């Protein structure tokens, strides 16, 4: 026990001595290295259409000689460029601390083919009842194999109902359709039910049932013929046609 304690004291003493000696050591004196040269270059925007311009901005430190693609420039600066093709700009900075390069690329894209400026043309006031009808009564769309009226279709049907109620005596045909995937005969039954769903909704909203006729076109009269969901969705609809007024 006694022996161990003495041993620890010795170790601690040696440690303290070592620290003292280290602190007293002086650093070796050498000449300072030249400060390093830095260079940055950026283009903003990095992509332009032909005929537009971009701004190159650069900065350097500790450089004696700065040039951009061979032309001497200020150590820090900016410049507007308007290249006709995609161009990479090179910044070269040189100083006592060495040399540094930086690059920035301006991507040039072809301008869009010029389109005549759209002449603001206000929708002409509807001339015929059919045009008025077409502007105010919209088709509704259905989910696959479904005939219930979707939330978005409810809003549409409500607007349709208001218009139809304001035009009593107008007779409307509701045409239910389906996409190409279902079977021919079953799609006729499904289209029938889609047309009927809209009719029931309109009647509940106050439209006279006598003003509404339904017909199913199944998948016999598609408005779109591609085999993709966009097209299928377009074909799963009720279309409204004014048949007498």
């Amino acid at each position: 026990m006694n022996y161990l304690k003495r041993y620890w004291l010795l170790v601690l003493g040696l440690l303290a001595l070592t620290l003292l000696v280290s602190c007293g050591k002086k650093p070796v004196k050498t000449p300072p290295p030249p400060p390093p040269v830095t260079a940055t270059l950026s283009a903003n925007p990095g992509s332009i259409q032909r005929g537009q311009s971009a701004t190159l901005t650069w900065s350097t430190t500790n450089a004696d000689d700065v040039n951009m693609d061979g032309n001497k420039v200020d150590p820090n600066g900016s410049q507007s460029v308007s290249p006709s093709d995609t161009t990479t700009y090179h910044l070269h900075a040189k100083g006592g601390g060495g040399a540094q390069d930086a690059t920035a690329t301006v991507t040039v894209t072809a301008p869009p083919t010029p389109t005549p400026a759209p002449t603001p043309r206000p929708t002409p006031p509807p001339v015929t009842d059919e045009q008025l009808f077409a502007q105010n009564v919209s088709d509704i769309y259905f989910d696959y194999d479904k005939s219930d009226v979707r939330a978005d279709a409810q809003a549409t049907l409500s607007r349709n109902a208001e218009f139809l109620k304001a035009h009593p005596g107008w007779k409307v045909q509701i045409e239910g359709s389906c996409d190409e995937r279902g079977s021919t005969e079953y799609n006729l039954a499904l289209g029938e039910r889609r047309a009927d769903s809209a009719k029931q909704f309109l009647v509940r909203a106050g439209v006279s049932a006598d003003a509404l006729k339904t017909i199913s076109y199944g998948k016999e009269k598609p408005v779109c013929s591609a085999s993709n969901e966009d097209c299928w969705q377009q074909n799963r609809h009720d279309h409204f046609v004014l048949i007498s007024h």
Partner: protein
Amino acid sequence: MLKQANAKKSEGMKTRFALLVVALLVVGLLPVAPANAQDWYKGGTNSGAPIRMAAADFKPATGDPQTQPLNTVFNTTLFNDLDNAGIFEMVAKSFYPAGTPGYPQDIKLDAWSNPPPNAAMVAFGNLGVTGGKISVQGWLFDVKNPASPQVLGQQYNEDATPEMARLIAHRFANEIITRLGGIPGPMLSKIYFISDRTGHKEVWQMDYDGGGQQQVTKLGSIALSPRISPDGSRLAFSGLTKDSWQMMMYSFDLGRAVAFPRFPGGNYSPAWSSDGTKIAFASSMGTGASEIYLADASGAGPKRLTTGKTDISPVFNPKTNAQIAFVSGRTGLPQVYVMDADGSNVQRVTDQGYAVSPSWSPNGLLLAFSWVRKYGPGVLGGADIYVMDIASRQIVQLTHDGGRNDFPSWSPDGRHIVFQSNRSGEQIWSVLADGTHLQQLTRTGRNSQPNWSTH
């Protein structure tokens, strides 16, 4: 049964397929046997296995320039008919002995009954054109029964045209099939279908093998769902008028459409009872939604049978006329249902997927239908033809190619099914009820909704 089938798809399918083939043979042939027992050919070594059949090219009997081309038409048609029958194993022509037996005294029985042909039956004869008339003599010999080889001997005389050469071949093949198979083949039957090849969907007709295609209706709008009457004299279909879908009737006796009552709403998918007295169809006349109705064949007295909201495609059990199968979307995706012909006792017979277009087999025991069996997002589009044994609800898959296969219709002998498929454009195909002998029947325009005559 169905659940099990789903779990063990391919393995179970094979077993089930074999079972159905047996079932088809048993249910397809046995009910017919007592009535026609005397007509059945008994003899030879045939015991249930397909009969090995050879059809020798017929011998030209005259030097008329028409003889050779018509003989070629005849020989091709006869061989295909026998091959299509589904009850023969055809011996390839490359195995036939040299020489063409034109008459009974020409045929060397041993040369046909021994290998390589190893035939049990040989059809042979002669064909000649004289003065614009074609004359055909045909025989069927049981070559393994030298003591009394003649099974059939027939003679035919018609105008010398390719159509008549084909018709004579169909008749002779049908005689052979009737004698050896117990019931006539479909060689003289017709298939009615929808084609848009004129620019409008119209009803067309063709022979069972796709020959002789000709237009029936000239509606100029859209014709759908052709259904031939049991006696073959009238064709019911659904046509688009200027304001609605109406049931329409075409008379082959008169060669024109005849009057049929107009009903409110849309009227679709007619079906004849097998005695020709009733028509079932789908109509929205009652509630604004499509439901199944039953009326006299004249269209009189339509009576509503169902209260589903998307009921369509009725078809009678042709054996009893006491049941009707139909399609309904009343629980969501369309399923096949069976009910009594008065609308009672409705039972759903498919339990999943998208099941449509039922067709009841002539013997009343099987339902063919189109089914997207595993239906769900991402697996749309694959509809295949399936056959269900109604009593056991056992189901086998008939087509396997993917694509959309729809509107199966049974041949009068119950051995074939015709259907539409989009595997090479929308076209009509036929297949033996055991899934073999798949062949394309139409190639012009888009063709759909085939309906096989009942004779």
